């Protein structure tokens, strides 16, 4: 039956349950990227059927691996002409299903566009292709004493293009900001296939801040083919402190006290007992076993860091820390961070399955929300481990469950969504850094009202009126773009020359 469909355009065939890319389209794609840049074999396609959120899967019709912006344009034009949905993909480490393909659609893998094109130390920026790995940017500029600040836990594999799509954060964004803070300019292939420059290496280019809107749009507004990133001078001194508390609430209180003392640490992280247990099992970070572990990192001038570290110690002691440790060497610091960054994956050591959530709350709501999460988890007899960027109220509750137990996955999913609602009810957000993607569309509808979402849709429609760039993501329900509004029609009064005064 499918073989009869190949003449039809994708959107027509998609009305049926059988979604395949017409062979002519595949031929066009091959011509655009070369035979070595096209994947259509079922077993190879399987690699691309999901991202880091593995419970959503869909088989793409083809994967293309363009080598430059021109090839991306050619691919997008083919998709636009045939109204085939496409999704761009970096390393596929996203945790919200952002890179999940449309069934039968095209995956544009940016893996071969991985060159650092320009390094300008005097003006503190680098220009990279989207497939460049996050930590490679820092490696490249480190000899000059600089680093690239956003540091998602997956930084050794995730790509800049993916970071741009998700507006990725990391542990140090409390002080240094997010991907958008560090993105000066973008070269973007629009869903029509046109190539545009958004922003500039200089600040405040005249016009709307389209680079600011594009970052974090989760691949729904086009494909970034070049990114200009700001780099930051390494601080003179960095110190990392671990403090052990009875509970995450006590650790949370310490965070509030540190902030109230007008300090802006570069990182403030909390892990609860379950998370510590898992991280220890996975990477032996030598964490003290306790109910709530606080990690504080301060950076800046040596004299200032030293003085502030003394203040932090005093605050920890006041809040009855049972143990306070400062990493003495770079190796010790690296190990502390390794444990923290491995925390999600480490859950596999203590639970057969787990769901990573990503909610945000005002920092002051932390003790209240943590207690409520505890209560909600006990009510359904599940365990929730907590790892969070406490400085900016970004929680990562990890809901532990066993898929083998019938019905438990549904209960766990339901709990994880209820935790997001709890965050919104407390004045927060349904995602701090992982994005909405496929996973949190309904939650976005809980956070924003219909007029808010309709207004966001206006942006979407200006960029992608045909709705082919990563469609059916982010927004709670499929939305079509209304017919383009017509040209401006003068009011009859104006036409009559009466209202010219206006």
């Amino acid at each position: 039956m499918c073989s009869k469909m190949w003449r039809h355009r994708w959107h027509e065939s998609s009305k049926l349950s059988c979604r395949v890319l017409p062979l002519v389209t595949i031929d066009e794609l091959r011509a655009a990227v070369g035979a070595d840049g096209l994947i259509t074999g079922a077993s190879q396609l399987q690699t691309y059927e999901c991202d880091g959120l593995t419970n959503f899967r869909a088989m793409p019709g083809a994967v293309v691996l363009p080598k430059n912006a021109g090839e991306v344009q050619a691919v997008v034009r083919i998709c636009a002409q045939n109204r085939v949905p496409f999704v761009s993909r970096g390393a596929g480490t996203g945790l919200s299903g952002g890179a999940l393909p449309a069934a039968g659609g095209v995956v544009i893998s940016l893996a071969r566009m991985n060159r650092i094109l320009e390094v300008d130390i005097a003006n503190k920026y680098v220009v990279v292709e989207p497939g460049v790995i996050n930590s490679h940017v820092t490696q490249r500029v480190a000899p000059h004493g600089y680093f690239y600040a956003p540091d998602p836990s997956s930084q050794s594999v995730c790509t800049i293009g993916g970071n741009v799509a998700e507006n990725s954060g990391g542990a140090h964004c409390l002080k240094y900001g997010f991907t958008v803070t560090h993105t000066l300019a973008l070269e973007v292939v629009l869903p029509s296939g046109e190539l545009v420059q958004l922003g500039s290496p200089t600040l405040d280019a005249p016009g709307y801040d389209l680079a600011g809107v594009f970052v974090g749009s989760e691949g729904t507004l086009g494909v970034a083919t070049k990114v200009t990133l700001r780099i930051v001078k390494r601080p003179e001194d960095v110190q990392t402190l671990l403090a052990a508390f009875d509970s995450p609430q006590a650790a949370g209180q310490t965070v509030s006290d540190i902030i109230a003392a007008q300090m802006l640490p570069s990182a403030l992280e909390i892990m609860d007992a379950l998370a510590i247990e898992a991280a220890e099992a996975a990477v032996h970070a030598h964490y003290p076993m306790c109910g709530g572990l606080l990690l504080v990192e301060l950076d800046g001038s040596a004299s200032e860091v030293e003085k502030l570290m003394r203040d932090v110690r005093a605050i920890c002691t006041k809040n009855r820390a049972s143990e306070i440790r400062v990493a003495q060497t770079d190796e010790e610091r690296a190990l502390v961070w390794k444990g923290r960054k491995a925390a999600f994956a480490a859950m596999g050591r203590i639970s057969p399955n787990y769901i990573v959530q990503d909610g945000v709350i005002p920092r002051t709501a932390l003790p209240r929300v943590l207690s409520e999460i505890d209560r909600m988890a006990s009510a359904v007899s599940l365990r929730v481990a907590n790892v969070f960027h406490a400085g900016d109220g970004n929680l990562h509750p990890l809901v532990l469950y066993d898929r083998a137990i019938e019905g438990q996955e549904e209960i766990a999913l339901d709990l994880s969504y209820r935790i997001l609602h709890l965050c919104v009810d407390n004045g927060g957000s349904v995602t701090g850094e992982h994005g909405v993607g496929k996973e949190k569309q309904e939650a976005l509808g809980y956070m924003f009202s219909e007029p808010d979402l309709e207004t966001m849709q206006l942006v979407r429609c200006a960029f992608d009126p045909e709705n082919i760039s990563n469609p059916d993501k982010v927004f709670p329900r499929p939305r079509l773009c209304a017919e383009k509004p017509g040209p401006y029609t003068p009011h009859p009064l104006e036409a009559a020359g009466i209202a010219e005064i206006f």
Partner: protein
Amino acid sequence: MSATVSISLQECWSHLASIAGQEHTHLASEAVAVAPADTQQVSEVLRFADANGVAVTPTGSGTKLGWGNQVEAGIRLDLKRINVLREHPWQDMTCTVEAGCNWATMQAELASHGQMVALDPLWPEKATVGGVVATNDGGPFRLRYGGLRDLIIGMTIVLSDGTIAKSGGKVVKNVAGYDLHKLMTGAFGTLGVITQVNFRLHPAEANTRTWTLVARDAADLAEPLRALLDSQITPSSVQLRAQKLECALDVRIAALPECMDQHETSLRKVFGQIELQDADEKVWRARQELFDAEGGVVLKVSLLPAEACLISAELQQLAGRDDLEINIVAQATGLMTVSLRSAPEAAITLIEHLRWRLRSSGGSVVALQVPQLLRGGLDVWGCDSNALPLMREIKRRFDPNHILNPGRFVGNI
């Protein structure tokens, strides 16, 4: 004025008065000024304007109404009554403030908890939050704290059809939905009317010191500035001031009192032989003073930081050659304010030259303050972006009847 016209204005007035109250609706010779009480009333005003094709100019205190192309609007939408600092949960270091709130008033309230919105716009005693955001204004703080796009975490806006929409939220870290607030920041009121803004806050700078390096030629300050920016010192502000025959580099550091001396030692190390003088905080008013001088053209020039001294030196030389008076205040971020006094032709020639000069490095020149004489002969925006069609499409989606500040923005958007 014909009778028909006054009736039409009269009708407009009476409808707006029925929304905002007669005492808040005034009939002037060419427009109706209306000051709604809240976001809901802003929505009703816009819905009326949209249905009748009447152009609207939103205003705060009007300090920057001269920026951009001039708009002859039938309705002047005054945000002055929507002016309350709604929330300041100081332990969360955020605030929610209405657009008509005076900038200095807001900062004074935040300062009661030792906090601030880390932005230093022009005329803080007069300017309003909405006006500062709509024009994306900001001063030398940007080096350390970033610009408005880094400080705004949420917003309430009203679209031309009266839709009230929110984006972002009240938490600093948030990637849910599109950041409409980034689109609104610096959009000069052409996409929607901002009625409320959520900011992230920073600790106020309790203890600061300013130093100055003096030189004759801006080019002589290029190396000290480069060395400073490449050092591990994190100044809160750095600016270059350049006139015809003299120039200065100002550096401000905010630090704990007990660490200030050490910062000074580091600064002296970076600058080597060049003499470092203590300076008054007043030097940070230099940017605003360029606007306060009457009659001149004031430009916002954006260039690469490493070009700032060189371009300033070139301008100094031009000032020496022609009958031009040029004053420059350049921030280390590459944002430069230039005031020009000259014959109109010379000003236009200079602006065009600068645009050509900066094109290859992505720089731009926007004429913010323009004498009436020059209007018409000068493209104030100088936007040659290939994303202009996309910007027009966004405008069309947001404001299909083109009633919000029509023509004021880039490409006559």
